[in-house]
C-alpha cells in the first residue's frame, strides 16, 4: 500500500452569489482554489483557517458529499469521481465523517442503537446479531453502555453525543475519518476527553484523520501535519513542528500570534494588515 491513503489534486469549488442592486449581478466565490492535499496512512492532517476560508467545503468535497467543480480525490490510488455510483457507495464505508454539532447531527427520532448500527445495515455488514454485537462493542469503546442503545439523543450531554457521533463513524472500521470541528462546541474538560479518545482510537484502528478546526491549540495536540487555508487556498503546509516554530507566511504568523494565553501579545497585537486586504 502506498504511503498516502488520500490525495487531493487541484480541487476547485465555486459558489455563485447574487450581488449588486436587487441581486441582478452574480459574483463567483472561490471556496476551493486549486487545493492539493496528501494524507499519510494512520496520521492526522489538520486543516486550519478562519470562518469562510473554505475548510468545511473542503471536508465535504473530499468525501464526495458535494460535487467538485474541478480536480480529483484519490482514495488508495483510485479517483473517487471516476467510480460508478455503486462502487462509490461501497467505498464510503471507508470514508467517514464526525461533525461539529453533536446536537444537530444525530436524528432525534432514532435511538442510539439505531443511529450507530445504521451504517452496518446499509452496507449489509453482518446479520442482526453481529450488528448488535459490533454496535455494543463500539459504544462501550467510546465510553457508553449497552443500556444506552435504547436511549434517544436528547438524553445525553454534549460530550456524550459527540461520543455517539464518533461511534457511528467508526463502527464501519473506516480508513479515513474527516473530523469537522469535532470539539469546538465542547467545554475544555470534555474537549480533552474527546481528543484523547480520538488519539487512542487512531492507534487501535490505524485511522487516518483529516482534522478541520480553527483552534490552533487543539491542532498542536492532535496533528502530525497541518495545512493553513485562507480564502480557498492552502497557503502553507507541512510538518506541525516546523509550521509552529518557523511559519513562512505572514498570515500563518498572524494566526499563531492570535492564540490566546500569550500575555505579551495582547499589548502588541497589530490590526491584521493582510487579512483586511
Amino acid at each position, binding site marked *: 500500500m502506498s504511503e498516502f491513503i488520500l490525495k487531493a489534486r487541484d480541487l476547485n469549488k465555486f459558489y455563485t452569489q447574487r450581488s449588486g442592486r436587487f441581486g441582478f449581478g452574480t459574483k463567483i466565490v472561490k471556496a476551493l482554489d486549486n487545493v492539493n492535499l496528501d494524507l499519510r496512512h494512520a496520521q492526522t492532517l489538520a486543516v486550519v483557517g478562519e470562518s469562510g476560508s473554505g475548510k468545511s467545503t473542503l471536508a465535504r468535497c473530499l468525501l464526495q458529499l458535494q460535487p467538485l467543480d474541478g480536480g480529483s480525490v484519490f482514495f488508495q490510488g483510485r479517483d473517487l469521481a471516476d467510480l460508478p455510483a455503486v462502487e462509490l457507495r461501497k467505498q464510503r464505508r471507508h470514508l467517514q465523517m464526525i461533525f461539529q454539532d453533536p446536537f444537530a447531527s444525530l436524528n432525534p427520532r432514532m435511538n442510539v442503537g439505531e443511529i450507530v448500527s445504521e451504517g452496518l445495515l446499509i452496507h449489509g455488514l453482518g446479520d442482526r446479531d453481529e450488528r448488535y454485537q459490533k454496535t455494543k462493542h463500539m459504544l462501550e469503546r467510546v465510553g457508553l453502555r449497552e443500556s444506552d442503545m435504547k436511549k434517544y439523543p436528547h438524553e445525553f450531554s454534549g460530550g456524550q453525543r459527540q461520543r455517539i457521533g464518533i461511534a457511528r463513524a467508526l463502527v464501519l472500521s473506516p480508513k479515513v475519518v474527516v473530523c469537522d470541528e469535532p470539539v469546538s462546541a465542547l467545554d475544555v474538560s*470534555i474537549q*480533552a476527553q474527546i481528543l484523547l479518545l480520538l488519539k487512542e482510537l487512531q492507534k487501535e484502528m490505524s485511522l487516518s484523520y483529516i482534522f478541520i478546526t480553527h*483552534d490552533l*491549540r487543539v491542532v498542536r495536540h492532535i496533528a502530525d501535519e497541518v495545512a493553513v487555508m485562507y480564502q480557498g487556498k492552502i497557503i502553507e503546509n507541512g510538518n506541525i513542528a516546523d509550521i509552529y516554530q518557523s511559519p513562512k507566511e505572514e498570515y500563518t504568523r498572524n494566526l499563531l500570534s492570535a492564540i*490566546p494565553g*500569550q500575555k505579551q501579545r495582547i499589548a502588541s497585537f497589530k490590526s*491584521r494588515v493582510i487579512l483586511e486586504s
Partner: protein
Amino acid sequence: MAALVSIEELTIAPLDQPSLKLVNNVSFAIQSGKTTCVVGESGSGKSLTALSVMGLLSNQLKRQHGKILFQGQDLTLLSAEKMREIRGRQIGMIFQEPMTSLNPVLTVGYQIGESLSVHLGLKGDALKKKVAELLEQVGIPASRANSYPDELSGGQRQRVMIAMSIACEPALLIADEPTTALDVTVQAQILSLLDKLKASMNMGMLLITHDFGVVADVADHVVVMFRGEIVEAGTVNQVLNKPKHPYTKALLDCVPDAEGKKLLKPIDYAWLKDSKSKKVKVAS
C-alpha cells in the same frame, strides 16, 4: 479601596425547585479599572451570576439570598424602574452572540444612539457626533453608522455591541463570553480593544469565559466556579500558576497549550467528589 461591585452570598434556585442551588453562596468583588474573570464549565452558574448583577434573571429563577452592592447601593433592593436607569447607563453589557443581540431592522448607528438619547438626552447633531466618535473608538469607520447588522462581519458586530455598551461610559462592563463566537484573530483584536477601553475609562470589567487563554490575557482577578460554587478565587497569577483547588488544577490540565508539550488530562469527576471535603477556603 472600596470595591466597585461586591457580590455577597448570592444564591439562586429555580422557583419550583428551591433546593436545587444553581448558584450557591457566591461572593466576590470587582474593582474599578480591573478585570475579574469568572471561569467554569457550562452549567457552573457563571452566566447566572452575571445576569443577576444586571438584574436580568429569568422569572423562573429566584434569588434566594444575597446582596449585590454596586457603588455602595444594593441593586437587589431597587425597583425595576430604578434598575433600568442604571442598566446601560452605569452598567454596560456585551453578550456572546452579536447577531442575536442586535436588532436586524435598525441601523447600527440608531442602536448605538438609543442608550445615549434615553439616558443622556442627546439629540440631533450632538447625538450623531457622539455615535460617530464611538464607532471610531471601536475601530469602525463612522460612515458605517447607516449600515444594518447583516452588512457587518461578526467581529464588526461585536465592536458595535461594545460601542453600545460603553456609550454612556459605564462604571462597570459585563461581558458574557464576548469572543467565543469569533475567529482567533478577531478575538485577539476584540480583547485588546476591551483592555484598552477599560484602562482609558477606568471601568471595572466582569468577564465570563471558559477559555483560560483569554483569562491569562486580560484578567487581573479570577474566580473559578464549579457546580454553582466558587472553588477558588485570587489574582490571575495565583490561580493560573499556583492553583490550590484540585478542580482548578484539573481544569487547567485540560487546556491544550500552544507549544503542544503538555499532556492533556481529562477531569476525573469521581475523584473530585471525594476531594470536595478538602475545599480550599476562598479569600478575595
